[in-house]
């Protein structure tokens, strides 16, 4: 079966799952099973098919599973958000379509993605400006103590979502060029391999940027996400575990220092360590999130069964259910099995992404695919780890599932870049295999 036919086949069960999800939510809300779920399912399938046909024309060799897996995440998100608030789900569906439009535009105009390498410093500056934007007076917005949003006129978005792509592109292109000097110039000091000081500069800049995010943007999650993705790239580029260990040590020291001096970060860590100290105050969200997951059991309570607001009031039982704690809501309604399913989708996306990096032909493609996959998977880890109290809870979105336009649109751009790398890598690998086969036959 060709790659695109595989993709087409995979989209059918995804649309089926969306339909079943909506049907279950409707069945719960006053037992009115009407045609609406079928209509939504058909609409979703039609939108996915449009994207699929576009891929068929533009990227015929791209990875067949990535798009269906992402569509499945979006389906999860749409069903869950609809179940919280139908109006939000309508917004989310619009964002989904807009995301696909940007996805198509990225593929259209960045077909030759090597262009990105040429503009790497411009891209890096844009990425840093995007990070800074929420602190600028007039357009910056403060959400729960963190500076995450930007509002320019009617347009509001979270720039960190876009800047992660910029930074990955920059790092991939920078490390592609400098990885050899990083390795060859390395010195052993006291049994630890240290990177050469001259080329250590960018490492310090990235470390500084993530510390800066901790202090000025107060965004613990994005800070962790950026730095972890950077270390993943550094490891893949140089193969030196000691560089990663040094980076981690630097991050931990910095994070510890700022956690004890910056009040907002300090609070987050305190809540994480002891949420029971203020069960009705600061610890409320994380505690409710854990209770909701425990309440789900093995198979969950069923679609539409979870209590999101305290009955008879408007007070939230599960705060920020459509964004931060949407994972807890899924676990509550679908149980441990549903939760494992969601985590498996992310794992499979990561596996496909790293496979693209494995078969890609040149260093930039390899590092780009690695970086995009790493930043995406780490984002999922940061928020799932947050609501399960593995790490402090932060306001990072669950990619493709959480409510939020910036997140959906930015992640579709990320997916477009991955598929672009994949298409070229698989086409080259395929051509090589065919040539190799001919040469063998001729002998």
């Amino acid at each position, binding site marked *: 079966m060709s790659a695109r036919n595989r993709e087409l086949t995979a989209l059918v069960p995804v649309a089926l799952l969306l339909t079943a999800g909506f049907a*279950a939510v409707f069945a719960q809300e006053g*037992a009115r099973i009407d045609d609406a779920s079928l209509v939504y399912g058909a609409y979703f399938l039609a939108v996915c098919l449009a994207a699929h046909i576009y891929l068929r024309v533009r990227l015929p060799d791209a990875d067949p599973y990535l798009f269906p897996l992402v569509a499945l995440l979006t389906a999860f998100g749409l069903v869950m958000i609809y179940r919280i608030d139908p109006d939000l789900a309508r917004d989310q569906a619009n964002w989904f379509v807009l995301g696909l439009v940007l996805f198509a535009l990225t593929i259209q105009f960045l077909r030759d993605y090597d262009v990105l390498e040429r503009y790497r410093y411009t891209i890096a500056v844009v990425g840093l400006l995007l990070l800074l934007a929420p602190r600028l007076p007039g357009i910056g917005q403060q959400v729960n103590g963190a500076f995450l949003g930007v509002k320019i006129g009617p347009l509001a978005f979270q720039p960190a979502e876009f800047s992660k792509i910029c930074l990955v592109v920059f790092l991939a292109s920078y490390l592609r060029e400098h990885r050899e000097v990083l*390795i060859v110039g*390395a010195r052993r000091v006291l049994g630890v391999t240290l990177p050469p000081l001259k080329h250590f500069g960018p490492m310090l800049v990235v470390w500084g940027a993530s510390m800066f995010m901790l202090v000025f943007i107060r965004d613990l999650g994005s800070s962790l996400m950026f730095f972890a993705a950077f270390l993943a790239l550094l490891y893949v580029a140089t*193969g030196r575990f000691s560089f990663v260990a040094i980076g981690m040590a630097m991050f931990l020291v910095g994070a510890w220092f700022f956690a004890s001096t910056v009040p907002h970060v300090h609070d987050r860590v305190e809540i994480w360590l002891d949420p029971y100290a203020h069960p009705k105050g600061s610890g409320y969200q994380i505690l409710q999130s854990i209770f909701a997951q425990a309440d789900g059991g093995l198979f969950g309570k069923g679609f539409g069964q979870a209590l999101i607001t305290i009955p008879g009031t408007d007070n939230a039982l599960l705060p920020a259910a459509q964004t931060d704690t949407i994972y807890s809501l899924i676990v509550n309604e679908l149980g441990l*099995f*549903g939760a494992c*399913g969601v985590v498996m989708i992310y794992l499979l996306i990561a596996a496909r992404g790293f496979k693209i990096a494995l*078969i890609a032909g040149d260093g930039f493609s*390899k590092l780009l695919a690695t970086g995009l996959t790493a930043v995406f998977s780490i984002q999922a880890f940061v928020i799932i780890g947050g609501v399960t109290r593995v790490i402090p809870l932060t306001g990072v979105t669950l990619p493709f599932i959480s409510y939020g336009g910036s997140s959906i649109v930015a992640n579709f751009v990320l997916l477009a870049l991955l598929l672009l790398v994949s298409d070229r890598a698989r086409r080259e690998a395929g051509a090589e295999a065919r040539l190799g086969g001919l040469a063998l036959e001729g002998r």
Partner: protein
Amino acid sequence: MDYDPISVALKFGFLAVLYLFLLWVARGALKDVRRTAMPASDATGFHQVAAVAPQPAPDVWLVADRGGGLEPGERFDLIGGLSIGRSADADVRIDDRYASGVHARIFSRDGRTYIEDMNSTNGTQLNDATLSGEAELIDGDVVRIGDTELRFEAQA
């Protein structure tokens, strides 16, 4: 709490379809992993740069054996590396209809000498084995491009 049978059925149906789908995708991924896990040794060129201190480089030459319009016994100094091919830009210009414009290159790294096939059409043979990517050259190695044979010589 009442359990609506339809909603329970839909929940389990949803989980079943979800897992079947994921299993199907994972199966494809596993197959790929098995396929790509095998010959990746020098497919990437990553991790291959050894971080040893440069040793005093030995004198290295490429000596023409036969073919390619070269005088047998003609010697090419390899210090700094050179390219082999049919085009006028190649350092060692060989007249061989099976050779590509820039067919292969030889370069040194940390005191060792390597040959790399530059994605040539007909490939490079190193001691009668097809060269994929790059390989280290040691004294006496025979490089064959089409009908041209060249011998690698190193003197410490």
